[in-house]
């Protein structure tokens, strides 16, 4: 049971981690809780379905599986990046410099809007996410492991590594870190702050899109309110890891998912969310800087 719960938790953790990165990046740079981030993830899953439908009618899913998989990830990534950038432009940028309450309320409004917009145009019923990858499963230390689970873990870890490299090594990545530390100063050395913020939203949204498509593939079912719960959990993960800290968000995602998984398995399935919120509250009260807040400063974006 322990090994199985570990596997269960790791897959959910990969999803939490990818979404949490978006929260942490945006918080790092704007000190804003982007409440609508969970909805971007949900939109990613829906765009994935739309892409699959088009590919299906073109017959591409049969003839060229590899290309289909690439497109099913790529197009939602592009769309979510566009949504993220638009979101920032419409709901947050006009409020920069306003009291902190205003963007937060605007963010909640945007979350409500996007969630219900999808409900209006896509209908409220659950949507099937067609199964693209038929991967077998095997047993490992008494736990069932599915090929898809490994696929998801590899993608998540790979993206995380790529993001770290981007932030550490590239010029734009350094500009992101500089902007997060001192926005005005960054503009004084010639950084176009608005562009950097747009890029930050785009990156966060791209990661959320990947998470959305993966969740669609993994569970086979998507609806318009998956964004809220996943968003809350991912935010908790980001706080757990130390908000603003990229490595922290990643670890926080896995840690929260594993805690949840073991709690649900060994203690109580119905109090699982209570437990997750307890973790959030306790961390915020006793260690608001998160588990990596003290030591991982170098990672701060």
């Amino acid at each position, binding site marked *: 049971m322990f090994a199985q719960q570990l596997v269960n938790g790791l897959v959910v953790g990969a999803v939490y981690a990818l979404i949490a990165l978006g929260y942490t990046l945006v918080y790092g740079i704007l000190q804003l809780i982007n409440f609508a981030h969970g909805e971007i993830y949900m939109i990613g899953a829906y765009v994935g379905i739309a892409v699959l439908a088009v590919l299906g009618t073109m017959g591409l899913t049969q003839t060229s599986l590899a290309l289909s998989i690439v497109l099913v990830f790529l197009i939602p990534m592009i769309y979510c990046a566009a949504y993220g950038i638009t979101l920032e432009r419409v709901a947050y940028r006009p409020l920069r410099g306003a009291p902190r309450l205003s963007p937060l309320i605007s963010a909640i409004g945007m979350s409500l809007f996007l969630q219900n917009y999808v409900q209006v145009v896509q209908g409220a019923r659950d949507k099937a996410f067609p199964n693209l990858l038929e991967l077998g499963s095997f047993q490992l230390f008494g736990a069932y492991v599915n090929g898809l689970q490994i696929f998801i873990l590899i993608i998540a870890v790979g993206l995380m590594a790529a993001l770290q490299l981007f932030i550490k090594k590239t010029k734009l990545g350094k500009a992101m870190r500089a902007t997060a530390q001192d926005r*005005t100063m960054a503009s*004084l*050395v010639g950084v176009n702050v608005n562009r950097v913020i747009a890029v930050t939203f785009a990156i966060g949204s791209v990661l959320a899109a990947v998470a959305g498509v993966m969740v669609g593939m993994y569970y086979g079912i998507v609806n318009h309110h998956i964004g809220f719960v996943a968003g809350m959990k991912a935010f908790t993960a980001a706080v757990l890891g130390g908000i603003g800290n990229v490595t922290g968000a990643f670890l926080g995602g896995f840690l929260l998912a594993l805690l949840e998984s073991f709690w649900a398995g060994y203690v109580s399935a119905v109090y699982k969310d209570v437990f997750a919120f307890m973790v959030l509250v306790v961390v915020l009260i006793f260690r608001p800087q998160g588990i990596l807040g003290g030591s991982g400063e170098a990672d701060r974006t």
Partner: protein
Amino acid sequence: MLELRDIHFYYGHIHALQGVSLEVRPGQVVCLIGSNGAGKSSTLMAISGVNAVAQGEILLEGEAIHAREPDDIVRRGICQVPEGRRIFPHLTVLENLEMGSFLRNDAGGVKEDLDYVCSLFPVLHERRGQRGGTLSGGEQQMLAIARALMSKPRLLLLDEPSLGLAPRIIETIFEVLARIRDEGTGIFLVEQNAHLALNFSDWAYVMETGRIVMGDAPGVLRDSPAVREAYLGE
């Protein structure tokens, strides 16, 4: 080179700049003195494009730049060392310097300039792997100036470079500034330390409550009884 004409700026509801006009000629060091809250930093931020000017214009070699974005203004050769230095605390010294050359694409030139600023401030070379936030105040000021130089500015804006530093360090810094000046970079200096500023500059302005009240050669100002009383503490 740089000209401000009747600049007005509002900080919330406060009319912080009430018609500031001044000029920096090529190759000159111009200083702006005034007490706390007179609007000196607001003026610099207006030039750098951070503060949106409500009225008036800022001309760089005859071209209006007041509606441009800050990054565009850096690209045009104006770079500011803001008050309080504002080092990126979690970036290393080297990364801070690299940020200074953010807009440049000539890798070779950047490398050269890196060596150049390290020759100006050898201590930065020693500390290049250290995070900016761990430097001492004087080192941070040096880093801030070096960072600004990395953008190869034609005009350097300096906001209170002597603030809170030991006299020996101030001396080092002004020696370097003199070298920069001699190499042909224009300097616009904002200082509370009027002695220091007047000694260093070719032209000086005095600012009070959002307005320029005097503008003359430093020698003339030094002899003015008003300036003597208010800023030179005599």
